[in-house]
């Protein structure tokens, strides 16, 4: 058993194509990738809102970083 489809390199390289693991599941891997990407945006947007609210509460008009 091999996740990349080859257990040894005793092959003619002219006949070798893809050698990444889990060939045939590319669409599923893409779905996981897109979920990860969109989830990141959702989390970041939520965290940024919290940070901006906290920042607004903390500051006074006279306080800035010089």
């Amino acid at each position, binding site marked *: 058993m091999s996740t990349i489809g080859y257990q040894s390199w005793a092959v003619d390289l002219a006949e070798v*194509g893809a*050698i990444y693991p889990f060939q045939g599941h590319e*669409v599923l891997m893409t779905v996981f990738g897109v979920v990860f*990407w969109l989830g990141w945006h959702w989390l*970041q947007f939520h965290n*940024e809102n919290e940070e*901006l609210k906290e920042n607004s509460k903390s500051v006074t008009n006279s306080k800035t970083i010089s």
Partner: protein
Amino acid sequence: MDGNLNALTTIFTEFYYWVTVVFMFLIHVGFCLYEVSASRRKNHMHTLMKNLMIIPLVTVTFFFFGWWIYWAFPDFPFFGGLNLAASSANTPWSDTMGTNLNDHITGVFWAAFLLFSWTAASIVSGSVIERIRSSAFWIHAILIGSVFWVIDAAWGWHYAGWMVRELGYHDAYASGVIHAIAGGYALGVLTVLGPRIGKFDENGAPRDIPPHNPWLLTIGIFMIYTGFWGFYAACNVPIISPEIIDGQIIGTTWTATNIYLSPTSLSAITFNFLMSLSGGLMAAYIVSKGDAFWTFSGGLAGIITASAGNDLYHPMQAMLIGAIGVVFAYKLHHWVERKFKIDDAVGAVAVHGYSGFIGLVISGFVLWGSPSSPFEGYQTINPIGQLAGAIIMFGLLGFLPAYIVARIQSSLGVLRIPKSVELSGLDFLDDELYQKSRAEIIAAEEKELDR
């Protein structure tokens, strides 16, 4: 890879594009230095993170759909449907978009285009610093980096793009397809975003908001120059035979080509890169009266202006065209700033947008009647085609979508940071934590000394 010559050509081409990608990484390093240095100390860490996160966000979206758009859109939607045959090998689930011993080119070619995508997004990033919400900007970064510039590349920077075929559009080193579109996009966002607090006085006159680190800012532009070498090389096909091109070229002489598969050479573009850089620097030094920021930016603007035709120009032409572009961009920047109260923090609209636009127009006259392609039936290069191309790049694919999306974000209240945060600085909370930690460590050290 049957045969030694074929193997050598393939591996050379793979390595060639790989080297360009490494060089182009320096563009992003330069943009980060430039942008962070231009910001005030109260904002510089957020400014850095805003630019840094372009890298992953544009990379993954360019993998998901940007690369597919390039291959699917050359005729779409005006002259045909999506090219599903060519694009099918460039979907994220294609077996050539991964480790594949039968394909040595897709990964490095994809990456070369991707680094252009980062550049397009980075150009916009600098202009909007110190008041845009990072989440809002990153949507724009994805749109310019993985959607709109890729559409313009499919139309006007592809050997079979409709703008090349129907308009004779010629833009060898991306005056329009990267710079004019990114400048136009930045202007679209800026128009809605508004200026930083204090940028304009009661009479509407602009104030200078000095960079917190002027010399590091100029080193950033130096770094962009360096990366620009990789950008230029990446715009070429390093070596190809007329048989593979399969166009009108006769004989068996192999050549380097531009992206349209029309012949040029690395030597030619090396001449013209340096001469247009020099023309830009010299003109900018004079017109800005020796201002360091504008002189360095002028070098960049000189290259950008001449880039459309730098595959064919004589070095003298490249130098003079670079100089003309800088004067045009500098004057227009200050006029637009005063007239429309546009606060472009790093002059990106001028350096990239106006220079790119005027560079396309000039090339239409200088290269009038020259072939835009090695293939039969293509319109030759002409002023009308180049002007139309400049309007499409700057206006239709740059300014317009940016303006619409920014208006939507603004109406939802998610475009700009709150006024109190803008006044105190985006890094206010981080600075409080920093000062607190610093005080605790100093107190602990003093306690240790007292023992």
